[in-house]
């Protein structure tokens, strides 16, 4: 299955992936409307320190500890992608306890969110990858 892979050697620390993610999942028609003057809470997040930076989002594990820990059945695997049904989620944070990458977080409205490879929004392919100007994030089969 195609996944998002990150190579920190190419990361510029520009945070564009975070913006593209926030926009893609905002349901808004323009990036300006979605992001202007807002504190964004993207599903991909940059870690940075000294001169190193890299993006972290869900790895869509073949052995997803989040799914195995979820008490509500909100997390599931569909064709290899790990998806979340926010409607079922009760916010217990067992998934946050279990994920070794720290890839789940609370959204602006407080519900649990994670990267779903843009499978559920209008774009269909990961927008963080589209937004990365230096190919530090790629979407491919490995």
């Amino acid at each position, binding site marked *: 299955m195609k996944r998002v892979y990150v190579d*920190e050697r190419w990361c510029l620390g520009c945070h564009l992936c975070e913006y593209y993610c926030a926009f893609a999942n905002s349901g808004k028609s323009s990036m300006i409307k979605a992001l202007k003057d807002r504190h964004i809470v993207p599903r991909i997040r940059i870690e*940075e320190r000294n001169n*190193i930076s890299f993006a*972290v989002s869900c790895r869509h594990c073949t052995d997803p500890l989040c799914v*195995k820990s979820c008490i509500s059945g909100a997390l599931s695997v569909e064709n290899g992608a790990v998806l979340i049904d926010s409607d079922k989620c009760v916010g*217990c*944070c067992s998934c*946050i306890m279990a994920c070794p990458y720290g890839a789940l977080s609370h959204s602006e409205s407080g519900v649990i969110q994670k990267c779903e490879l843009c499978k559920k929004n209008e774009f269909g392919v990961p927008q963080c990858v589209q937004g990365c100007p230096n190919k530090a994030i790629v979407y491919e089969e490995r």
Partner: protein
Amino acid sequence: MRYVILGGGAAAIGCIEGIRAVDASGPITLVGAEPHPFYGRPLISYLLEGKTTREKLLAYRPADYEEKRGVRALRGVRAASVDAEGRTVLLETGEVLPYDRLCLCVGSTPFVPPMEGLDAVREKTSFMTLDDADRLSAMLGDAKDKRALIVGAGLIGLKCAEGILARAASVDVVELADRILPAVLPPEASPIVQKHIEAAGVRFHLGESVKRFEPGVAHLSGGGSLPFDVLVLAVGVRPNTALAESARCRVERGVVVDDHCRTSVEDIYAAGDCTVFPDPDTGALRPLAILPNATMQGETAGRNMAGGRAVYDKAAPMNATGFWGLHMIGAGRYEGEVYRSQSGDATKLLYTKDDRLAGFLLLGDIDRAGIYTALVRERTPLSSIDFELIRETPQLMAFSATERAKKLGGAAQ
């Protein structure tokens, strides 16, 4: 290969997944005593609280889950005994099921200590099953006029308290230990959480037990008495071992399994709350009654039943929970050297021992806690990472560049 799974909870789901990962077609029969499809057992308090619905709770797995996996599920049926020689299971209906591989996923039963006068209390229940939740809901009614008494301030008792507080006139909790959540929190964290729960309106009676019940009144060991209308017993649970005993499996408080989830009897496996297994650190047999453990043991058992090779040697206690908006995540053991930090309402406790993160607890700010959990579970040598950095915030930056490249660019794990 014919598979039989006894029990219909999280361990059974794991077992089905494990079997089907290796064997796509061998017939699986599941026997579950509860007359419901798979449901998230921990959701019963959220149901009472109105944070989930019955439909969602019962949709823990999709409606066609069993059909798609070739599982014949007998629900509302109990297994009576296992004949390991003849490789059959006798059901309470009289039906006899032959098996080639059997998995015991029968969970645990609430433990009720002897208490004088308990038999005379009519409005009482445990808090383990959906039927318990329904019973409790009916006893409380809608008038908000019932005084609830919960015996036990463990996770189950306190989740119950959260579930019913808004629907009861009052909630009192009696606990024998001198602090709340004694099995889930380190001693220094209990008072913080207690204060938070008290602020919501729950009253605690710690270091006390019920000496005697009279209709409508509980007399406490400390001399006081509490009037109540509805009683919830949440003192603890005991692994269900009767079926394992009938099959002559080794039982020590729970069904003893190894890291392949095998019992002592050939072709019989067990998983979840009914088991005890050697602690990866100490070797001592112990239960681990949490949902992730049930799923993962179940999967291990399933794979091995189907002829695969799976080892589950990374079991660690871990809990994520929350009360009235205060989130908490903890894992491992609260022993060794303590690092404590406090920022605003957030508390962090890290316990290090022998170059490992032995355990941790986060209260309030639980962001990316799984990175800590992984250090505990993987027994990562702290000398191999930048511990000072990760101590401040859970982050992948604390790992070496090679390790990071593997984590973020390597094949998915």
